[in-house]
């Protein structure tokens, strides 16, 4: 990055103190951010607990969905330490990206990942069988895990997710999701604990989801 670019950026720098909210879940938003210094946490309040979904480091973007539409923020972002961020919006982003191809490439990669994630989520929601939808959530989450953990694979997977998380991905109410999880538990496919859910054999769930998906395809 040359000097000219830096001076161009200074106007967009915003600083946040440790523990300060950058934006809040449900808030309408039209800005997105690139972290220059410091880390931020992505949190959601689920039930009565503030849950950390992820931690982002310098060089990472967040709030990029605002570039596409004025959708409400899907989570809150809070500074973990003193942070320096670049704040963009739809009107200045194109000029910035044209002048900074490295940043544009980074954003392009981010979009590629997001498209994949959303397609995967969409694939779950198109399943008409609610049991298959819940099972496919576990399959999707396991897909993002690294392969090296799966050597000598027994198929057991441990999820630090709540029933509400699973319900949200499966596109159903938590009480309905809980009924389905109990049903799976009776079949010994999963075990639900207070702090985690264990899948006995993920390959079994993959087979189950695939058979439901094929069945549905043949019906169409």
């Amino acid at each position, binding site marked *: 990055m040359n000097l000219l670019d830096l001076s161009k950026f200074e106007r967009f720098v915003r600083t946040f103190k440790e523990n300060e*909210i950058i934006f809040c879940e*449900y808030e309408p938003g039209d800005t997105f951010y690139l972290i220059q210094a410091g880390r931020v946490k992505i949190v959601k309040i689920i039930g009565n607990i503030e849950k950390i979904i992820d931690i982002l480091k310098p060089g990472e973007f967040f709030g990029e969905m605002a570039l*596409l*539409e004025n959708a409400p923020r899907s989570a809150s972002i809070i500074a973990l330490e003193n942070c320096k961020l670049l704040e963009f919006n739809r009107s200045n982003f194109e000029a910035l990206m044209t002048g900074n191809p490295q940043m544009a*490439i980074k954003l*392009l990669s981010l979009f590629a990942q997001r*498209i994949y994630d959303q397609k995967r989520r969409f694939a779950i929601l*198109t399943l008409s069988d609610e049991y298959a939808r819940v099972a496919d959530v576990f399959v999707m989450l396991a897909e993002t895990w690294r392969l090296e953990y799966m050597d000598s694979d027994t198929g057991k997977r441990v999820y630090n997710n709540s029933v509400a998380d699973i319900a949200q991905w499966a596109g159903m109410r938590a009480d309905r999701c809980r009924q389905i999880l109990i049903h799976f538990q009776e079949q010994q496919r999963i075990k639900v604990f207070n702090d985690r859910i264990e899948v006995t054999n993920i390959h079994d769930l993959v087979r189950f989801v695939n058979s439901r998906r094929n069945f*549905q395809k043949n019906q169409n």
Partner: protein
Amino acid sequence: MPKTVFYRANAIVYFQGDKADGIPILKTGKIELAYEDIQTGAEIRESIKTGEFFGVKAALGNYPHDEIAMAITDCLVIHFSIAEFESFVAEHPRILMKMLQVFSTQLRRIHHQVQNLLSTDRINTNQEAGMFAIGEYYLKEKQYPKAYYTFKKYLQHWPKGIYAPQATLKAGIAEKSLYGNSPAVSEANEESLEPPVPPAANFDEIDARYKMGNYKEAMRGFLSIVQNEQDKAILAIAEFRIGCCLYHLDMFNEAAGQLASAIRRHPDESFLGEELFYIGLCHKELGEMEKAYNFFVKAGNLIPKDGPLYKQVLEKTREVRDMRGSNT
């Protein structure tokens, strides 16, 4: 150096599920991508123009290809490594911007499709209620700067929102706890703070608005009664009415929650049957027929049989009775 590869007609450039190593660009010939529509499973084909990169998303997103790329005629394809691709597009900002546009359009489309499927299941919490609830969470947790931020932002976006009077009050509490020289204000002396909302109009006036169907206005009125009123009987009915307003404003989850907590706080009111009836109505709207049915039956046992409401309760009970099996 990017390397040029020759593909005969009908050859496969890559399969679905292949790990993407590098990014190809079509130099001459005809290539088609084929993939299944996620929703219908129908095959979709897309032809690649000469000079076009393909399979970019999988390579940049670091996931397997979700389509198959086939040579339709004899083809020349140049394979770029990711680093080569990056330095190429860095020197061609117009191509880069075009790709950003294409990707963002695709992302917006798929995002909408996901949201549409989610909203038909009614799991999206109302935005306004959601943000207000976050403020309340932080206030309860005594995280005053965050509570203050959230209520302030709420008021900035919804200055006339249904929670605006409460948000004003609570932003004030959070602010005093932030800047006041006294230690954090406890729940117990919340009431001693002067409420920044205008004093409650009289109950009958607000109730008249409710009866005329001005639910938003009526709700604000009832909220201010709840904040200012001392009389338990009036408080109880105002809390009940807030639940009814939420119901009429199509906020069924919130309405059911409000009504349930009104009953918890004031369990012995004469209108308990009516409250249960409204909770039943909320569940009916949420598609929870079994719950709706149970509430209607309970309401029917409490509501006087000669009153005007009783007939409605019976009607609704019958209506949901036959729908119960359908959503389980």
